[in-house]
């Protein structure tokens, strides 16, 4: 207690928030030290969803890892698929055909829209804007339908393969995207009108959870969290992969580094992602979606059932896994929450020797105490909401 403090004297109270708290959509526990309602210190306890991703991957073949990557950030599983496939392809030294690269860009951006809609919608509804929550969930549902139409699954998609994608886009894909984006844009306009000048929303979001540029860099933050402080670091621009350098898009940046900036960055990115998808669909080249290399690609089903060579080929790839040469590599893509990197060590053979994911929201949780210190306990909800911690990726 400071001597000049005129308030009633209060003891420091320790409060454990979580691990199952209705407003922390993810199992995470905060051990808080409170002075009244002010947060003095916060210790983040993670690992409630730890299931040994790295160890499991070391037991699986290279292809069997793809379903595991779905379960990392399940709000943007397609980006995880793409990132993993690109990392393995970098180790192999293979480059996929242009059509496959465009498809991968399209699905990455669809997943990014999905991710940001989840984050913003949930954060808004936790602050009482239930309508916005439902509007964004509706928009998300429309995106999910495109993904379902394309991959056959809604959340854990397992669509990308090493050396290609599972199958080509459906016939009506372009039309479907145009229709959906029309509705999504209308919904986003509605949300914008409901939120962007809403007094309650602004009071809860602006100047809360402020983090400076230097601190953000020191905490290794990436993605919307870093960009909200004004740092223009986006893996798609700084280290372009796939065909991002041929597409025209901007990276929204903030200035203050508070929750409202993070919200605006994410909403801005939804619009940019829609622009990217529209460009990519318009530019989509014709051609194969697989690399032409029988070492990594399964034979066609007619060959498998019609010839012994085809059957053996299929059997070898399924049972022994594709053979990846010895070496190590790191490849990063821009995930929904920031730089999603895959560090792979191969000793040759059909299984990874070591597979490490750089989880953007695990690193963001490291900066959470810094963001919340000195604010009210109620400010934890929007701050945590804008981090968009996904347990599957954070705890692996």
């Amino acid at each position, binding site marked *: 207690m400071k001597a000049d403090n005129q308030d009633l004297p209060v003891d420091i109270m320790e409060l454990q928030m979580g691990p199952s708290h209705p407003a922390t959509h993810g199992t995470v526990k905060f051990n808080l030290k409170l002075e009244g309602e002010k947060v003095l210190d916060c210790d983040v306890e993670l690992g409630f969803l*730890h299931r040994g991703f790295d160890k499991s991957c070391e037991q699986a073949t290279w292809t069997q890892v793809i379903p595991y990557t779905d379960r990392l950030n399940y709000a943007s599983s397609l980006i995880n698929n793409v990132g993993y496939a690109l990392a393995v392809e970098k180790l192999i030294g293979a480059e996929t055909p242009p059509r496959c690269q465009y498809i991968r860009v399209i699905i990455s951006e669809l997943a990014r829209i999905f991710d940001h809609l989840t984050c913003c919608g949930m954060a808004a509804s936790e602050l009482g804007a239930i309508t916005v929550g439902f509007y964004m969930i509706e928009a998300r549902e429309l995106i999910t339908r495109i993904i379902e139409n394309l991959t056959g699954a809604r959340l854990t998609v397992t669509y990308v393969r090493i050396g290609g994608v599972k199958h080509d886009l459906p016939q009506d894909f372009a039309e479907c995207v145009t229709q959906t984006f029309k509705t999504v844009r209308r919904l986003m306009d509605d949300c914008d009108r409901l939120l962007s000048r809403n007094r309650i929303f602004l009071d809860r979001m602006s100047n809360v959870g402020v983090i400076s540029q230097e601190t953000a860099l020191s905490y*290794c933050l990436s993605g919307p969290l870093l960009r909200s402080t004004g740092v223009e670091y986006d893996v798609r621009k700084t280290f372009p992969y796939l065909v991002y350098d041929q597409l025209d898009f901007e990276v929204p940046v903030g200035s203050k580094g508070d929750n409202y900036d993070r919200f605006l960055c994410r909403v801005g990115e939804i619009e940019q992602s829609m622009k990217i998808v529209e460009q990519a669909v318009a530019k989509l080249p014709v051609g194969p979606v697989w690399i032409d290399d029988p070492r990594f690609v399964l034979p066609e089903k007619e060959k498998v059932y019609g010839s012994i060579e085809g059957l053996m080929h299929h059997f070898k790839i399924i049972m022994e896994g594709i053979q990846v040469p010895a070496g190590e590599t790191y490849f990063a893509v821009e995930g929904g929450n920031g730089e999603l990197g895959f560090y792979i060590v191969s000793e040759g053979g059909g299984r990874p020797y*070591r597979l490490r994911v750089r989880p953007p929201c695990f690193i963001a949780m*490291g900066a959470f105490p810094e963001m919340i210190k000195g604010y009210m306990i109620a400010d934890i909800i929007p701050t945590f909401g804008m981090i968009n911690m996904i347990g599957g990726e954070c705890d692996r």
Partner: protein
Amino acid sequence: MPDASPQVAFIQDKLGAKVVDIRSAQGDDVLILNRAGLRDSFLLLKQEPQLDLDFLSDITAVDYWEKKEPRFEVVYQILSRKKRQRLRIRVPVPENDPAVESLTPIWRGANFLEREVWDLYGIRFIDHPDLRRILLYDEFQGFPLRKDYPVNLCQPRVPERKVEGTFVDERSANKLLRLKKTLGIKN
């Protein structure tokens, strides 16, 4: 050894004997550093304006059990946003003394990453402010990502931790006891 990129050649010039080896893997620059004076090496890489490697991307480790000596390697990924360069730094760590200097004084984000490496590999970080387990619980025995840790090993369930100062209503325990008694369950 393939031709070193200008970045790596420059670093080798600056760090001198601390660089054990330089490699190039799939177009990535890889530097193998001595663990002595590691923090100073990183500080130099971060502050040298010609390199501008100011962003720590990732810290992890690899266990080369019965494959390589020394057994462990701590792997750092750093990058320069302005120069658009990535650099991977590998630091060999022996099994009998698995410890490296912590980078938390340089990048505060290293805190969580190093805690994870400690948790899963048992590599200590000297001068780390708060080296506790992070993904696993405190009672966990061993380090699961080491290659000699069996995949299927089951660890016993740990009893509930008594947290000091926690409010517990004793009646709830009595209710459970009564229920157990009526159902005839021992303990």
